[in-house]
C-alpha cells in the first residue's frame, strides 16, 4: 500500500478537525459574548477609567491582525511571564478576546437602539437600574443584535482557521497534513473549504431562525 493515497480514515480525520474547529468556535463565542456584554454594560453605566480602558483595548483588538494577536499570546506571553501556554489555550484566549471586541461594538449599538424615553419611563415607574437593564433593555437589544451577530459569527468561524498556524489540530491543520501526504491540493482544499462553507451556512440559518423567533412579537399577525 502506498501512503500517498486517500484512505477511509481520512474522512474521520477531517471530521475530527471539524469537531475541534467547532468546539473552539462555540466556546470562544460564548466567552466572547460574556466579556463583550460586560464591557458594553460598563460603557452603559459610564464607569470612569474602566470605560476608557475597555474602549482602548477593544480598538486595539479590532485594528490588529488576529494572527499577530495569536503570536503575541502563544510566543510572547510564555517568554515574558515565564509560563506555559499550550496551543489550545493560546487559541481560546486570543479568539475569545477578539470576539469580545467585536461583540462589544454590536452590544453597544444594540443598547443604544433602545429609545431613551423607554428608560426614562421605566425609571419613572421606579424600576431599579438592574431591572431596567434586565427587563427593558436586554430583550429588545438582543433582538436587535442577532442580525449583526450572525454576520460576525460567520466571520469568526473563518478566523478560527488561523489557529492551525500555531499547531492546533483544527480543520485547516488536518487539511495541511492531508495535502502534504497525498499531494492532491485541489481535492483536499476543496473538501476543507466545503466543510467550512456548510458550517457557515448552518450558522447563518440558525441565526435567521433565532432572529425570527425573537421578533415574533413584532410580526404582523393579521387582524
Amino acid at each position: 500500500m502506498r501512503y500517498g493515497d486517500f484512505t477511509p480514515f481520512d474522512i474521520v480525520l477531517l471530521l475530527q478537525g471539524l469537531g475541534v474547529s467547532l468546539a473552539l468556535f462555540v466556546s470562544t463565542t460564548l466567552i466572547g459574548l460574556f466579556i463583550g456584554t460586560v464591557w458594553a454594560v460598563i460603557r452603559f453605566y459610564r464607569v470612569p477609567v474602566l470605560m476608557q480602558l475597555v474602549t482602548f483595548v477593544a480598538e486595539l483588538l479590532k485594528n490588529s491582525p488576529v494572527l499577530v494577536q495569536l503570536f503575541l499570546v502563544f510566543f510572547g506571553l510564555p517568554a515574558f511571564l515565564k509560563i506555559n501556554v499550550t496551543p489550545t489555550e493560546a487559541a481560546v484566549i486570543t479568539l475569545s478576546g477578539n470576539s469580545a471586541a467585536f461583540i462589544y461594538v454590536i452590544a453597544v449599538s444594540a443598547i443604544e437602539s433602545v429609545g431613551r424615553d423607554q428608560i426614562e419611563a421605566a425609571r419613572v415607574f421606579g424600576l431599579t437600574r438592574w431591572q431596567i437593564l434586565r427587563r427593558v433593555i436586554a430583550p429588545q437589544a438582543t433582538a436587535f443584535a442577532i442580525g449583526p451577530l450572525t454576520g460576525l459569527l460567520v466571520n469568526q468561524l473563518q478566523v478560527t482557521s488561523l489557529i492551525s498556524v500555531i499547531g492546533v489540530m483544527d480543520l485547516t491543520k488536518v487539511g495541511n497534513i492531508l495535502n502534504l501526504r497525498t499531494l492532491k491540493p485541489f481535492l483536499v482544499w476543496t473538501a476543507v473549504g466545503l466543510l467550512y462553507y456548510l458550517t457557515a451556512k448552518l450558522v447563518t440559518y440558525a441565526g435567521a431562525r433565532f432572529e425570527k423567533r425573537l421578533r415574533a412579537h413584532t410580526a404582523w399577525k393579521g387582524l
Partner: protein
Amino acid sequence: MKFDLSILAKHIPFLLEGAWLTLQACTLAVLGSLVLGLAIGAMRTSASPLLNRLAAVYIDIFRNIPFIVQLFFFYFGLPEIGIYIDAFTTGVVALSIAGGAFTSDVIRSGILAIDPGVIEAAQVSGLRKITIFRKIILPIALRASVRPLGSVFINLILTSSILSTITLNELTGSAKIVASNTFRPFEVYFVLLVAYAALTYSVSILIGMLHRYLNRHQEEGAV
C-alpha cells in the same frame, strides 16, 4: 523579564523592508479587489438573471470560506495544474479575489441605494447603458460607499498578515524572523500589534477625510 524595546532598534530596517512588502501587496490587492468588486457588483445588479446568479455564487463562496484555505488552495493547487507563480503574486491574487467578494457587496448596496428616478431620467435622456453606468451610476455609488469600502480595505490590510503563512516575508513574516533571532517574542509582537493598529487607524482617518471631501457638495447634515 523586563520589557525592553531598545533590543529592537537594530532590526528596524529589516522590519521596514517587510512593511514595504506589505504596502506593495496591499496596494495591488486593493486595486485588484476594486476592479473585481466593480465587475462583480455590476453583474450582481444587472438585469440578466444568469450574470446575477453567477455573481451571487462568487460572493457566497469567497465570503464563506476562510481566507487561509483559499490561499492554500491557490498556493498548493496552481503548481499542480502547471501554473508556477511566486508567493507574492499568489498572495496578491488570492487577496484580490477574496477582497473582491466583500467589495462587490459594498458596491452593490451603493448602486441599489441610488434613487431610481435618477436612472430613469438618464434613460429618458437617451443615454446608452454603458454611459449611464459609467457617468451616472458609478460616481454616485462610489461616492456613497467610501466609508464601507474603507473598512473592507482595512480588513484587507489585516488579512494580508496571513500571507506570512505562504513563506512571504511581509511585515508579520519578518517580525517572526526577528522574534526568533532576538528571543524576545513579546516585545516584537507587541510592537507589531501597535504598528498595525496605528496603520489601520491612520488609514481610517484618511478615509474619513476622503469621504468628507467627495461629499462636500452634499447638503449639510446629510448622512
